């Protein structure tokens, strides 16, 4: 198997570390579903099928320096940039110690100032103009940062996305728009959402590059992100990257995808699963073994077990804090 990672500046250790984040995202997501079905987690949005895209994208960003406006499916992004399974589970279980919001915000509406992670609203796409605004501030101050903002192809139909992209284009702002196209806006298939094949084609209308990549391949996404980051830091403005992915689960714990997706289609995409394919690549280039994989799984599952245990035992928010944070204190 050809070595594709060296040319991207990734050594073997980095490759294994990327795979670890992908597997962690998958295993943690699977555990969240179990907790949901056990009645311990009220609601979750799943990242399964998006891991390769998310880890590849976040790998090109500098933790604590660059800004991130991830959308609700971006579990792999926030884990790669530095949040932990414990952070995720504390939010999922709405605990006082939840670093996102102390149990106030919905799960997967990430917010974590130490890592410059900015929370979103439930109406989708509203984070896109925010990304333009954060980048505008950075440009005014002369800060050398990029702003990552992500959304699904469904959200690409929102007016806010258009307005945010146009604003970023006009001011040549250092924003990277990552559209994770999983082909369904909950139940509505892509052909009922848009009359073009690629969301990235729209970038031409704003005056910045639009790139389509295989989102099930972390190296492809990383390569596109690297280029977009360099372009942004040179002051040349935004890039729209469209990563073609497939969500392997329903949209959230509240819907049944059997009503709108044929099982054969889901099975077909499972065969192209990015996590399994990346493991094959690692083994193909000789940096990974089945034994190492089993050992990694054991270690990650132990970490997740510990995080679940910790989060379940953690305290609920204090009733006396009910009215806090509506205004500045």
């Amino acid at each position, binding site marked *: 198997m050809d070595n594709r990672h060296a040319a991207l500046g990734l050594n073997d250790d980095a490759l294994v570390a990327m795979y670890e984040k992908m597997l962690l995202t998958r295993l943690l997501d699977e555990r969240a579903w179990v907790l949901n079905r056990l009645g311990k987690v*009220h*609601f979750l949005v799943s990242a399964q099928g998006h891991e390769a895209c998310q880890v590849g994208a976040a790998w090109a960003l500098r933790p604590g320096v660059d800004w991130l406006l991830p959308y609700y499916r971006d579990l792999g992004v926030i884990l790669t940039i530095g949040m932990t399974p414990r952070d995720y589970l504390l939010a999922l279980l*709405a*605990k006082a110690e939840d670093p996102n*919001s102390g*149990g*106030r*915000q*919905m*799960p997967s*509406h990430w917010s974590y100032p130490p890592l410059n992670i900015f929370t979103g*609203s*439930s*109406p*989708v*796409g*509203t984070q896109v103009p925010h990304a333009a605004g954060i980048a505008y501030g950075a440009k005014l101050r002369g800060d050398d940062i990029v702003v990552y903002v992500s959304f699904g192809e*469904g*959200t690409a*139909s*929102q*007016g*806010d996305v258009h307005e945010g992209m146009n604003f970023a284009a006009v001011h040549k702002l250092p924003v990277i728009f990552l559209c994770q196209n999983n082909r369904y*806006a*909950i*139940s*509505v298939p892509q052909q*009922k*959402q*848009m009359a073009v094949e690629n969301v990235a084609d729209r970038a031409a209308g704003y005056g910045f590059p639009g790139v389509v990549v295989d989102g099930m391949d972390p190296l492809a996404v990383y390569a596109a992100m690297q280029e977009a980051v360099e372009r942004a830091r040179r002051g040349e403005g935004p890039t729209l990257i469209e990563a073609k992915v497939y969500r392997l689960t329903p949209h959230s714990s509240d*819907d049944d995808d059997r*009503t*709108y997706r044929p099982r054969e289609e889901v099975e077909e995409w499972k065969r192209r699963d990015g996590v399994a394919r990346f493991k094959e690549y690692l083994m193909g280039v000789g940096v990974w073994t089945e034994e190492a994989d089993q050992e990694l799984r054991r270690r990650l599952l132990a970490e997740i077990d510990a995080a679940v245990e910790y989060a379940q035992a953690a305290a*609920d*928010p204090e*009733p006396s*804090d*009910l*009215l806090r944070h*509506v205004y500045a204190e």
Partner: protein
Amino acid sequence: MADITYREALRQALREEMLRDERVFLLGEDIGAYGGSYAVTKGLLEEFGEKRVKDTPISETAIIGAAVGAAMDGLRPVAEIMTINFTLVAIDQVINNAAKIHYMFGGQFRCPLVIRTVGGGRRLAATHSQNLEVLFAHIPGLKVVAPATPYDAKGLLKAAIRDDDPVVFIEHSLLYSTRGPVPDEDYVVPIGVSDIKRRGRDVTIVAYSRMTREALIAAEELAKQGIEAEVVDLRTLRPLDMGPVLDSVARTNRAVVVGEDWRSFGIGAEVAARIQEEAFDELDAPVLRVSQLEVPTPYAANLEKLAFPGSRQIVEACQQVLNIQVGAPVAAG
């Protein structure tokens, strides 16, 4: 007379109006094969086809904007906005357009559109479980409906579809599975008519949507204490029918207004103001409000429970206007 759910009552109303009037069509996110996020439109795509049951992109502005255009063009669109929170994305189309077109054209164009949307919600947090009915109720040119029972839901939705003005039709996420009797034959419940849901001589509870149910539960509880509460269900918030409220207050001399919205500048504020303007001499006590605490809805279950009003707070408010000493203060609202 069959006992059906609120969800089924709404579905029947849509279906019957689509059969009755071929100008009626539905548009919204996930309303086709998926049958709607709250399963109200299930089966309608199969029965009426894609021309009349349109799945849309995630584009609330286009959903409502296109519905406004289609309505002006003579159709009867019923736009579904998945939750009331998402109407905010398209609020300009509602307030600056749908509400004002008839007026701005000097009556030459009508805008007979229905925006079906969902208020309330539990465990969905600050931007996903709001009660924003007052935003629409504030606006001349709109009609705003918020039914509490399957009977009213069906009859009011049919009236809304037949109405020549834009109607914001606010369902409640926690009511879809509730059941009640609904006649087999065609009927409408007129927009702008409040309804007395329970008779009582001691105190008037004014409510709408899910709070009507909570008010009825509270009334049962009060009855055990020898207090007979009258429950007036507003059903329509604009135009507001104060007749039954004022008649009731003239008999009970005391009123509690219940909404799941925030207290300040809310539906309760309007109803209380109207009572004191129009029935000041009838009152033996200040009108009290029961409402959500003034905090965005928290996600954590324990905090959320404290933020929303329920039958317990209604009971306490009624005891308070009756000057009955109780141990606990009114917690919410």
